[in-house]
């Protein structure tokens, strides 16, 4: 072996490789066991049944479920083909306007918002508090309790689903191709890029068509005051 080949082999141990993600072809979170929240068995079973029901609720979309990811109150179901659903405005079906006291009562904790110039118009529907943030591009911030219901998402292989940390909270980034979001009591709709994280019992969700991962993480930091 030449000196150059030896040097190349030495490089293998000295290259700064990114840390290898955990392996697991399972219906479990990909995060380490220490981060995983222990869920009662009935919750897991119900979530799986709901995910199956959602995935197969549209007859034209008998799409194979490839993988199910859970993050607290959020279930992401990987499918090979998305069912056909309608695209809607971010402001659609947010529910009636409420004041911050009503919003806090629904969440059980005070609502978290980024620093705003004016007052925010809050909406409440079925336990989900929503506010449309007027950044250069419209963004929807939603907050809800993870023990009230499970948010469902259907993602095809065109959507990148990445586990990440939002400050100290576990989160998921869904970017790339649009995915389907299923809020309770509203029809499934197509969703753009989304950052989701859970702090305590509350799930936070930022959605924007042109939202980048970096911008979402920065805004999440402002929302959480970190």
């Amino acid at each position, binding site marked *: 072996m030449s000196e*150059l*080949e030896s040097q190349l082999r030495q490089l293998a141990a000295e290259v700064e490789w990114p840390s290898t993600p955990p392996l697991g072809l399972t219906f479990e979170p990909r995060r380490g066991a220490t981060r995983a929240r222990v869920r009662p068995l009935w919750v897991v079973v119900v979530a799986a049944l709901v995910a199956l029901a959602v995935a197969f609720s549209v007859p034209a979309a008998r799409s194979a479920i490839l993988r199910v990811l859970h993050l607290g109150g959020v279930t992401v179901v990987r499918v090979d083909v998305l069912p056909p659903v309608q695209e809607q405005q971010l402001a659609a079906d947010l529910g009636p306007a409420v004041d911050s006291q009503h919003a806090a009562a629904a969440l059980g904790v005070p609502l978290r918002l980024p620093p705003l110039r004016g007052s925010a118009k809050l909406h409440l529907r079925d336990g989900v508090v929503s506010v449309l943030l007027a950044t250069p591009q419209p963004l929807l911030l939603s907050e809800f309790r993870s023990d009230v219901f499970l948010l469902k998402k259907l993602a095809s292989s065109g959507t990148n689903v990445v586990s990440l940390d939002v400050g100290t909270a576990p989160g998921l980034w869904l970017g790339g191709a649009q995915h389907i979001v299923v809020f309770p009591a509203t029809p499934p709709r197509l969703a753009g890029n989304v950052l989701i994280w859970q702090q305590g019992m509350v799930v936070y969700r930022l959605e924007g068509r042109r939202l980048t991962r970096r911008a979402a993480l920065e805004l999440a930091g402002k929302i959480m005051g970190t």
Partner: protein
Amino acid sequence: MLRAQRGDTRAFDALVEPHWQMAFRLAFLITRDAAEADDAAQEALLKAWRALARFRDTEPVRPWLLRIVANEARNRRRSAGRRGRLALRAGAVQVSGGAAPSPEELTVAEDEQRRVLAELEALPEQARMVLACRFLLDLSEAETAAALGLRPGTVKSRTARALERLRKAHV
């Protein structure tokens, strides 16, 4: 293998686990983005799982898995301008020999390694990838051929040409 083919995901994990780091690093070499590599490796894992019924258990697992991972990573690769570059770990370079190296020796050795890495990174993609597979991932010619979609003979000749090219750059 039989248990994995019958649907036992734990058996499948056990089958893949020895090659998982290699598979992820191959995805990273192709995509040059840790998040993209993560996605590519995970999606490849699903495809491997779905293709397992067609896998012949007389074949080695690693080339089969690497081929699937590499295909997925190539499909997800971003434009060339956005790719990251390989870097050395801080303080990673060791000097051979029994005695503890002086700071000067370490600096010289580290500079030399950085130079080799920079020269490797500057090679055209075909040459860079074949050398990265053979030397950074320590894949055999057959495994490199599977990962890059080449014939073993092509890997051999391409490796020789890439080494020669790197040698000239290193003079």
